[in-house]
């Protein structure tokens, strides 16, 4: 399926836009990570990044479904 991935902070600079649409063969965040890292290798230079699905952190792997709100969360630095 095709998913939209929202970007914040440095990931917006890496994507060069606020969100990207990518096609995934397996509907999981671990597969999405592979696809994104092949399209945007600079993601691998980050200290760490997580996914959030529907505004909740993904702790391990997670199955994605149509309509999920997906975001990449690079290291946070609020406060």
């Amino acid at each position, binding site marked *: 399926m095709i998913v939209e991935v929202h970007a914040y902070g440095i990931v917006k600079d890496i994507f060069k836009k606020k969100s990207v649409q990518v096609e995934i063969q397996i509907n999981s965040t671990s597969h999405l990570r592979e696809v994104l890292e092949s399209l945007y290798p600079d993601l691998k230079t980050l200290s760490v990044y997580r996914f959030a699905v529907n505004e*909740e952190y993904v702790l391990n792997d997670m199955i994605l479904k149509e309509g999920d709100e997906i975001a990449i969360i690079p290291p946070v630095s*609020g406060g």
Partner: protein
Amino acid sequence: MTYIEISENPLDVQTCINLVLTPETGGINVFVGSVRNMTNGKKVVRLEFEAYTSMALKEMKKIAASIEKKWPVINIVIHHRTGVLSVGDIPVIIAVSAAHRDAAFSACKFAIDELKEKVPIWKKEIFEDGEEWVSAHP
């Protein structure tokens, strides 16, 4: 009660005190963040804060809920500012009221530690000769 807000407007400490102060309050602990003029010896010109606002508000509410389970507090305020901030500007104010001061101190400390670890807000430091998203790279 819990008062959570993310806004582009300047934060106000008296407003936060007024929100948490009740007749049952014996002590309030407040943390006020401030934009520092230097990072690792480099002069900071300004900061830019960006939030994934809907998720950040959820994470801030979780912090408040954790506090209410851990300590006997009365009210909690977490206000975070976004947008462009200069040296001396205030990106965050956390205020916690309690009947007894120890709970207020512990809860406020916990809140800022958790916020810095979990709430999806990012800051970019703009130096005289470049810029950098804080903590992005190893």
